[in-house]
C-alpha cells in the first residue's frame, strides 16, 4: 500500500486502534454461532447422506428380520462413524489433501492402487444401490426400471455436469427428508422400548450367515468408504483452519448421531410392524409396510418418494466423488470447470461409474433388495484397507504435525478395524461351512 497516494477512510465512531468496542457476552455467543455456522457442512452432509437408499434398506432388513436384537450393531457403527468421520475431516483440514492422494503419498504406489481400487469398486456398488433404489421407488408407482433408471442417470448427469443443480439439490433433500417420517412411525408403531434399549446396548448375535451378513452390511452402509473420502475432500475444499477443528467435531458428531438416530427409528419401526408379524422384506414395496402406522394407506407412496429423493441425491454425488478420488491419486486435473479435454480422467471415471451402475441394475431379473444389501457388505470389506491407512496417516507426525493422533485413540481405531475384520471373517467362515 503506497503511503503517498492512499487516503484513509475515516473510521466510524468507536472504532480505531485505541477505542475498541466492548465485546459483550451476547456478541461473543453470536460470534461463536457464526463461526459454527461457517464450519457446519461436511459432517452433516456426509452423515445424512449415509441414510440413502442402501442405508434405509439395510436398516429395514435388520429390523424386519431380527427385531431389536441387532440394534447394538447400529450403536457400534455410529460410534465408528463418529471416530472415522472425525478423523477424515481432521486429516483433510490438517493436510489439505484428499484421502486417496494422501494414501499414495504416505504408503506408495501399491497402497495407492489398492485404496483407489477399493474405493472405485465400493462406490460402483453403492451407485448401483442408488439406482436400485430409484428402480424400487419408481416401480411402486408402476414405472418400469428400464425407463426410470436410464432417465434418472441422464437427469443426474445433466444436472451435475451442466449446472443449475443447487435448486434441484434442495428439492431432493426435502424429498429424502420424508424418510425422517420413520422417527414418527417408530414412535406410533408402539415399539417395545425395553427390548429396544436392551438391543441397543447389549450385544447378542445369532451365529447364522444371514445375521452376520446383515450386521456386516450395517457397518458397511453406516461407515461407507465414499463417505470417508467425501468428508475429507469437503473439509479440504472448505479451507477450514486447524483452529476450527473443535467446531468441525461438533458438526461431525451431530451428523453421525443424526444418522444413527434415523437408523435406530427405521430399525424399531420395522421391528414393531414387520418383525412381530413375521413379514420379510422381499422387495421395496414390502419395506414400505413399516410406514403404515404413520401414513396409513399412503405408506407405499411416502416410502417411494423418500427413497427416490435419497437415491437421486446420493446418485448425483457418488460418481463425482469417485472421479475426484481417482484424479486425486493420479495427480490429474479434477474440477467441474475443466472441460472433458482438459480433464479426461475426471469425466471418464464419472461416465464409467454411472454407465456401469445403470447396466448392472438393468440386468434382467436383478433382485433389487439383495443388490442393495450386498453392495453394503462389499462396502464393509473394502473399508478395511482404507481405515487401516487412515489410522496410519493419523499417527504420521510428518503429515499431521502437532495434530498427530495419540496412542490411546489409535488403539480405538484399530479396535474398530478388528471388529469389522471379525464380522467379515465370521461371514466368510459361516458361508464356507454352509
Amino acid at each position, binding site marked *: *500500500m503506497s503511503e*503517498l*497516494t492512499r487516503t484513509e477512510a475515516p473510521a466510524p465512531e468507536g472504532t480505531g486502534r485505541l477505542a475498541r468496542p466492548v465485546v459483550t457476552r451476547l456478541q461473543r455467543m453470536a*460470534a461463536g454461532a457464526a463461526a459454527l455456522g461457517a464450519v457446519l457442512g461436511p459432517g452433516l452432509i456426509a452423515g445424512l447422506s449415509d441414510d440413502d437408499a442402501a442405508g434405509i434398506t439395510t436398516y429395514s432388513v435388520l429390523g424386519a428380520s431380527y427385531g431389536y436384537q441387532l440394534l447394538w450393531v447400529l450403536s457400534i457403527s455410529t460410534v465408528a462413524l463418529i471416530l472415522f468421520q472425525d478423523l477424515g475431516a481432521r486429516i483433510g483440514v490438517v493436510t489439505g489433501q484428499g484421502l486417496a492422494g494422501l494414501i*499414495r*503419498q504416505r504408503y*506408495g504406489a501399491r497402497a*495407492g492402487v489398492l485404496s483407489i481400487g477399493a474405493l472405485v469398486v465400493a462406490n460402483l456398488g453403492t451407485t448401483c444401490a442408488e439406482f436400485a433404489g430409484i428402480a424400487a421407488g419408481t416401480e411402486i408407482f408402476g414405472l418400469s426400471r428400464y425407463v426410470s433408471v436410464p432417465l434418472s442417470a441422464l437427469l443426474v448427469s445433466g444436472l451435475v455436469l451442466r449446472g443449475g443443480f443447487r435448486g434441484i439439490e434442495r428439492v431432493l433433500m426435502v424429498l429424502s427428508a420424508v424418510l425422517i417420517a420413520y422417527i414418527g412411525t417408530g414412535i406410533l408403531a408402539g415399539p417395545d422400548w425395553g427390548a429396544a434399549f436392551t438391543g441397543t446396548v447389549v450385544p447378542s448375535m445369532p451365529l447364522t450367515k444371514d445375521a452376520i451378513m446383515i450386521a456386516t452390511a450395517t457397518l458397511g452402509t453406516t461407515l461407507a468408504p465414499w463417505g470417508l473420502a467425501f468428508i475429507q475432500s469437503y473439509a479440504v475444499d472448505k479451507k477450514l483452519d486447524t483452529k476450527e477443528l473443535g467446531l468441525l467435531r461438533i458438526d461431525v458428531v451431530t451428523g453421525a448421531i443424526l444418522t444413527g438416530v434415523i437408523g435406530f427409528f427405521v430399525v424399531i419401526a420395522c421391528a414393531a410392524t414387520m418383525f412381530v408379524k413375521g413379514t420379510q422384506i422381499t422387495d421395496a414395496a414390502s419395506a414400505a409396510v413399516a410406514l403404515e402406522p404413520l401414513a396409513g394407506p399412503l405408506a407405499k407412496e411416502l416410502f417411494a418418494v423418500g427413497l427416490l429423493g435419497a437415491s437421486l441425491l446420493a446418485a448425483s454425488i457418488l460418481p463425482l466423488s469417485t472421479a475426484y478420488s481417482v484424479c486425486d491419486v493420479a495427480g490429474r486435473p479434477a*474440477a467441474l470447470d475443466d472441460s472433458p479435454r482438459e480433464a479426461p480422467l475426471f469425466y471418464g471415471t464419472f461416465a464409467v461409474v454411472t454407465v456401469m451402475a445403470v447396466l448392472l441394475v438393468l440386468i434382467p431379473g436383478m433382485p433389487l433388495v439383495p443388490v442393495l444389501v450386498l453392495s453394503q457388505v462389499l462396502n464393509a470389506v473394502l473399508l478395511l484397507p482404507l481405515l487401516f491407512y487412515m489410522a496410519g496417516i493419523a499417527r504420521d507426525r510428518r503429515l499431521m504435525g502437532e495434530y498427530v493422533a495419540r496412542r490411546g485413540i489409535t488403539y480405538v481405531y484399530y479396535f474398530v478395524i478388528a471388529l469389522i475384520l471379525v464380522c467379515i471373517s465370521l461371514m466368510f467362515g459361516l458361508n464356507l461351512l454352509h
Partner: protein
Amino acid sequence: MSAARVLTSGDRQSVEIRRELIASLISVAGMVGRPVRQRDGSLIGKLYDFVVPAGPEHPLVSGYVVEIARRRVWLHAADVAGLEHGQLFLQKAKFDFADVVRRPGEIQLFHDVVDHQLVDLHGVQVVRASDLYLGNVGDGWRLVGVDTSWTTFLRRSLPGSRAWRPTPTRVLDWHGIHSLAVSEEKGVQLDAPNSQLKLLAAADIADLLSDLGRSERQELLDDLETEDAADALELMSDEDAASLLGDAPVERAAELLSEMEPDEAVDALREMGADDREELLQALGADDETDLRSLLSYDEDTAAGMMTSAMVIVPASGVVADAVEALRAVRGTPDQAEMVILVDPGGVLVDDVTALELLGEDPGRPLMELAGQPWPVTVQPDAPLGDVVDAMRDNMGASVVVVDADNVPLGHIHADDLVDALGDAERRWPWQRMAGGTA
C-alpha cells in the same frame, strides 16, 4: 501383410531409440528397496533413498541412504561403483558408515518427492511424481526427469522386475519442476526456489496455491517474492487467501497483507477468526492497521465494504503535471493508475480525470480546465450491491467513487471488485473452481 503389425524402418528406429533411452535411465522408485552389494556380490543391505542437493537444474546424486540391519547409513556417491541390473554395487570392501542426518538443502528423492505433489512450472499445474529418472551424463548420475504418468504409477504396483524397470511415458524435465519437499523437522528448509517461479503470472500462482496441500502451499508461498505472493493472494478466493495468511507466520502474513490492495486484504481478513485477525492487525504498521480497521468497520455487503481506500487524490487547484506525477508514483498498481480524483481545499469531490485525458496535455494546464462532463458517478458508503451495480452500469465506466454525506471521497469501487462481489455466489459442488482462477 500378416496379422501382426509389420514395423516400418521409422518405427524400428523409434523403438530402438526408446530402448536405448530406457537402458540409459535409472528409475528412482524402482531402485529403492533393491539390494546393495559389495564388489564380490555379497549382500550388505538395501537401498533406502537417493540424495541430491536442492537448487541445480539437474542435480547430481551426492549420496545414498542404505539400510543395513535396520540402521540407515549414509553412503557417499564416490563410494559406489555402479547401479546395474537393479542393484547397487559398492566401490570398496570396507567403509565407515555414518548415520543419516537430514540437512537443509538436501532432498531424499524417493521419500521427499516420489508420490508427492510438485509444481510443473511449464504446464502450470500441480502434478504427482509417479517416478524420477536418473541419467548418467558423464560426471555421475543426475536427476533428469519426472514421470507423472498413470501407467508408470500402475507399473510400480506390479510384482518382480517389471516394477523397477523405467517406463518413461509422460516425462517432464526436472529443470521445469518446483519441488516442495516438506521436512519433518520444523525450520529445516529442504528445497531451494526454482528461478523460473518468477516467470509465472499471478493468476497461475493463485491456481497452483489453491490446488496444493496445506504444507506444500506454504512451502510455495515461502519461495515466492512478497510482491508476487501478494498479487496471487489478491486473485484467490477470500477463504483461500485467509487460510494461507492464517497458516503463515504472523510476521510474514503481515508483510503480505500490507503489500495487498486494501480491499482485497480486508476481504481476506473478514474470513479469518477474530483472534487471528486481531493478531495480524496488530502486527501491521500503524498506518496500515488504521486503514484496514476502518475498512473492516463497514458492512461487507455495502459499497464501503467492497471499496478500496487506495486512490490517487490531487487538489483541483493543481496542474496536469501534478496529476501525472501522482500517477507515476503508483505505476505498479493498475487499479490506482487509471485516474486521479480532484478535490477542493475542503476535501470535497470535484471531478475525476482519467490517465487518458491527461495524455498529451500541456503539463502547466490547470486541472480545473479538464473538469466537466461526464461527472463521476458516486454512491454512499451504505449503498447495497444492487445500487453499486446500477451505478456502474449507468456510468458505463470502470469504477464508481464512494463518498460520504459531505461528498468527501472515501474510496472507489472498480469493475473487478464488483465482479468479485457478484462471483461470491455459492458453488454447486466442492469440486468446482470459482471464477477468476480460484478454487
